[in-house]
């Protein structure tokens, strides 16, 4: 087990290095630089600015410097927000993004499992059909459409909830739901089909033949087995919620990493782009690792680190 974890950590580091290198290359291949703007700066000022951020050096040199700093945990300074270190920005934004993401994730998983279960147990009846229609809607409408609609109806028309900002819990409700929308639909559908499959298994018949009442059969035998595929979905879901948060944070003016990230790209704020990308990647890689660990715990057939299952 320890060996397995060690091996995984090593692979995670290599992955991270590849991602940061790729981002570095891609970012520098986009035309323009952080100082491209409407008003022309005098040549000498530009030169100074570039020198200040080390952008005057040749690219391989920049890369080595950046990587060296990165190893020491230093992500550099933002170019647009003068005097703010990228580390600071991430540290500020993270709790906000994490809360939003966690709320969306919890909503998507719990409500999704519940709705999927209900749909499966009421297969081909009214509640099943309605839930499946909802799921298709959830899958086909992107969150940059849902979010403004929520703002218009719940915020402006019915004045139920604040439309933007961050601080109070009620401000988190609309963005969380908007962010959870597609993941929720995914979980619901997966849970439904997984439930149906498990319900048809021989061991469910065995459980019923023991005389266990339906509640027990469902909670002790069906749910646990049906949830396994949903757990594998948590990795991709985290990615979906993470990318979704860029848009949602921007639309609801939430001061999270996603919002910084979007702005940094518009501004070609190189250090912030790099920092945020590396941070997001590290986070995703870590999540996937944790999901694998959880998977091995829930499904005893999976022995982590062993060749055969």
């Amino acid at each position, binding site marked *: 087990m320890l060996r397995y974890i060690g091996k995984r950590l090593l692979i995670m580091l290599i992955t991270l290095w590849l991602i940061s290198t790729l981002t570095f290359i891609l970012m520098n291949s986009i035309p323009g630089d952080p100082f491209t703007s409407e008003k022309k700066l005098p040549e000498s000022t530009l030169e100074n600015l570039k020198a200040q951020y080390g952008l005057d050096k040749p690219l391989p040199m920049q890369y080595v410097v950046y990587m060296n700093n990165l190893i020491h945990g230093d992500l550099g300074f933002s170019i647009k927000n003068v005097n703010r270190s990228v580390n600071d920005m991430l540290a500020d934004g993270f709790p906000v993004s994490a809360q939003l993401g966690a709320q969306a994730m919890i909503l998507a998983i719990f409500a999704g499992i519940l709705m999927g279960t209900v749909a499966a147990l009421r297969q081909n009846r009214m509640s099943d059909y309605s839930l499946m229609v909802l799921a298709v809607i959830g899958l086909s409408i992107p969150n940059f459409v849902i979010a403004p609609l929520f703002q218009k109806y719940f915020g402006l028309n019915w004045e139920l909830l604040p439309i933007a900002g961050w601080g109070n819990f009620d401000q988190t409700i609309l963005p969380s739901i908007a962010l959870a929308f597609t993941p929720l639909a995914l979980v619901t559908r997966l849970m439904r089909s997984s439930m149906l499959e498990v319900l048809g*298994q*021989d*061991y469910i*018949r*065995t*459980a*019923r*033949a*023991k*005389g*266990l*009442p339906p509640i*027990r059969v469902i909670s*002790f*035998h069906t749910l*646990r*087995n049906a949830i*396994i595929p949903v757990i594998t979905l948590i990795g991709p879901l985290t990615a979906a919620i993470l990318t979704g948060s860029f848009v949602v944070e921007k639309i609801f003016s939430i001061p999270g990493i996603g919002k910084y990230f979007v702005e940094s790209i518009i501004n070609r704020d190189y250090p912030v782009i790099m920092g945020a990308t590396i941070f997001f990647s590290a986070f995703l890689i870590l999540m996937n690792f944790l999901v694998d660990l959880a998977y091995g715990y*829930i*499904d*005893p*057939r999976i022995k982590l680190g062993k060749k055969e299952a």
Partner: protein
Amino acid sequence: MKNVLEINNLHVSFQTYAGEVHAVRGVDLHLEKGETLAIVGESGSGKSVTAQSVMRLIPSPPGKIKQGEILFEEKDLTKVSQRDMFRLRGSEIGMIFQDPMTSLNPTMTVGKQIMEGLKWHQKMNLSDAKKRAVEMLRLVGIPLPEKRVNQYPHQFSGGMRQRAMIAIALACNPKILIADEPTTALDVTIQAQILELMKELQHKTETAIILITHDLGVVAESAERVAVMYGGKVVETGRVEEIFNRSRHPYTWGLMGSMPRLDWQQDVELHPIPGSPPDLFDPPKGCPFADRCPHAMHICHEEMPEETEVSDSHRVSCWLEHPQAPSVSGENNNVKVHIGSK
């Protein structure tokens, strides 16, 4: 009354898109205390549906018990409430299934799966239930039961899983054990062990067994009585030696003729019964075997034969029993089967 179970005129149908499947059409069976009754018959003859009706485990919809009664200790199981059925299942009547590889829950330890029934039916506390689970595993011949009780099904071999299934089914000391092809999925040597185990446990616990199988060798080895099913009906029933050596039904003759036998020479050909079983969407009004029966007469296609009592224990439904029918002898007279240890 020495019958632990009595099935009278049972009819079961499935409602499908293509129409109604009459899977079981008027089955009469009884099971005596402590005996083993084998149900044989080719695929689709309604063996499993009959067994599942006793447990009320017919998937419903689409399945439904249309008619008849299943008497267990003076209660009609077709009529008892869901609640009473939950109490009966697993405690009074246990069931094991064909495929031990898929019949155990992969994410629950074997011990827990045995304990579950004990906790639910006998309100045992955790430590008593665990003790009993270990005891059951030892009883079904699983080595190191104290260790095995905490293991998951994937850590068990196929034969051991079927042993574990038997432990689950017998944990609450049921009066009846229904075994639906319990050895079909296992290796021949393991098959013999499992059958041996069932016989041994039956002696200890006096459980009556309904054994569903395709394998007449298994029947000869382990049953006292046999019911031969065809097209949703019991066409012949009797003691093992009556069915094997003095069978009166052409379908049974065919079944015997199509049985592979160890003591046969290589060049002896098997004779599978030609033709296919009746369409259960639109069952024939006469004898279900009429289309394939080499002795079929005009009346066979027109009317269902009445049941004839050959002896106290031997009954057959065939027009050949009618006084006016020509006399035909069973071609299995040369297939003398040595009846097993009993």
